[in-house]
């Protein structure tokens, strides 16, 4: 049951604010803010994905950029083939590109899920620092591959000339595209919420807290973690596909470890393991970039200082700061 706690009220406020901002932006004729809100929604979606692995499962993945990028490239590659009327491959059967978002999303989810299955099979055998470094290394591997593989633009990236289509919606209209991203975000939050309160979620959180006890009741922690890692990657991959459509451009930078770090920052600034933490975190990040980025080109320096202070002194992120510790009912 959803109770009217301080955190739930805050969550509702956060969601409402994010939803209302673009309409206000439209009313005062500042369409740029709609794009900012869309970026918040998409980054938050990537964070919601990571939060499932990191917050609930305690899996500190430093390689979620891999899935973000794969989702982005899935969108970019499918769209570029469709726009150039070239089949993606012809043997053993012909597969064509597409500009339908729904199909692109499905492919992005599948590709990131498969990649996560593969990466997870290796990396989840390890724990602690090894896990952090191996997820990082796998992401770097894909990053260097994307840079040195010339077929899809290599280092220069790949442009999508026209934003992809969604049935019944004009995606070129910024507000409509924002609403698509917002709906996807809310569905993902709902999915994570349902998962968290399911048997699976209980097992996942138990795996974070005490491996041995979980094994003792007959549940294999590895399978639980792997499932969480794959679902988490799928959500982040979907965010990557949306991000590609927002910018109409994908580049190997989506795979870089700075992206992994940023996705992690969204989760931390908001509050690890909080359902709406990534939304708050992404909003803070974008606001910060917007405000300080306007003042100085060295805004990353201040981001670093803020992040340092949050990590050292304000554990629990903004939501933790406002609502206090997580209550176990």
């Amino acid at each position, binding site marked *: 049951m959803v109770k009217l706690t301080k955190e739930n009220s805050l969550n509702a406020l956060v969601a409402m604010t994010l939803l209302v901002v673009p309409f206000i932006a439209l009313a005062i004729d500042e369409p740029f803010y709609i794009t900012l809100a869309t970026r918040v929604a998409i980054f938050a979606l990537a964070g919601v994905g990571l939060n499932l692995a*990191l917050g609930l499962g305690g899996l*500190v993945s*430093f390689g979620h950029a891999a899935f973000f990028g794969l989702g982005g490239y899935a969108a970019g590659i499918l769209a570029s083939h469709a726009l150039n009327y070239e089949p993606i491959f012809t043997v053993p059967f012909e597969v064509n590109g597409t500009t339908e978002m729904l199909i692109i999303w499905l492919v992005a989810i599948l590709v990131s899920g498969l990649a996560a299955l593969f990466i997870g099979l*290796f990396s989840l*055998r*390890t724990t*602690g*620092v*090894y896990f*952090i*470094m*191996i997820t*990082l*290394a*796998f992401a*770097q*591997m894909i990053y*260097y*591959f994307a*840079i*040195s*593989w*010339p*077929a899809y633009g290599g280092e220069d990236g790949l442009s999508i000339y026209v934003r992809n289509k969604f049935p019944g919606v004009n995606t070129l209209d910024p507000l409509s595209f924002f609403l698509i991203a917002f709906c996807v975000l809310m569905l993902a939050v709902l999915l994570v919420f349902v998962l968290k309160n399911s048997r699976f979620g209980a097992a996942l959180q138990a795996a974070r807290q005490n491996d041995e006890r979980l094994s003792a009741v007959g549940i294999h922690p590895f399978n639980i973690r792997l499932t969480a890692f794959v679902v988490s990657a799928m959500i982040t991959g979907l965010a990557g596909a949306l991000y590609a459509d927002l910018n109409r451009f994908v580049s190997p930078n989506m795979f870089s*470890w700075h992206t992994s*770090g940023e996705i*992690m*920052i969204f989760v*931390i600034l908001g509050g*690890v393991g909080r359902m709406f933490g990534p939304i708050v975190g992404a909003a803070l990040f974008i606001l910060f970039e917007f405000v300080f980025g306007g003042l100085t080109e*060295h805004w*990353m*320096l201040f*981001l*670093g*200082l803020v*992040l*340092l202070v949050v*990590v*050292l002194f304000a*554990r629990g992120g903004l939501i933790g700061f406002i609502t206090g510790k997580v209550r176990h009912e």
Partner: protein
Amino acid sequence: MTSALFIEQLLNGLQFGVMLFLMAAGLTLVFGVMGLINLAHGALYMVGAFACATVANFTGSFWLGLAASIVAAATAGAIVELVVIRRLYKRDHLDQVLATFALILIFSEGTRWVFGSFPLYLNVPDLLSGPVMLPGGIQYSLYRLAIIVIGGLVALGLYFLIAKTRLGIRIRAGESDREMIAALGVDIRLLYTIVFALGAALAGFAGALVGAIQSVQVGMGEPVLILAFVVIVIGGIGSIKGALVGAILVGIVDTMGRFLLPMFFQLFMENAQANSVGSALASMSIYILMALVLIFKPKGLFPAHG
């Protein structure tokens, strides 16, 4: 392919490996002794390179620059340890990753603020410039050869420091049981600062040496940092010996992969395609190596604690 070219590439791989060892040694020491994962190690490498380039350009002496790189990196390391890192030892790895990631942002943007975005140039010292004739009639860059020798000497020095000196005994004791050596009256906080500064000095030294053959610029430490992580994962986190073996393995596999794989694919492909497949695969080779090592040895080649 001539054997001279092959040997030259092999030496390049060795030189790269030695460089990686200087980075990886600090990382693995800091992890082994303090249990800390330090992403900001690449920033100290950058500090060393910038200090060397600035001092060398100002005084005209590369050697003064080299000394400055060690001093600057060790000082920066000690300050960072006292102000930030010290608070992280008892935290989980997530906090360590985030805080040191924040340090990277601060160091990179701070350096960009002071020095601008343009790379600085650092010339190879006159004493070591030009080629040298190796036995067998192979010409090789004297500077690169010097790096290999210096790296070997540093590895030897580290071995003696850790195996034979009192400080080394304390470091090893700190690795196995930190409460016990604190109880025996060793100032563990000072020891940690020393170890961190030592690692930083090695990183800064590496940065200065490499700065003379590459450009000195913001962000130069990050690719090296990630390779150094691969090195210590392969070698076994916390093990200096593992770092040495892992570094040379990674250096040689990476360099030889870039050299040999395109040629290998040319045997049965068109040139252009072979080059792209070969170089794409080469850029992934060390990560594949790491995955293979971890399948058979999940704790690396030389696990530090049993």
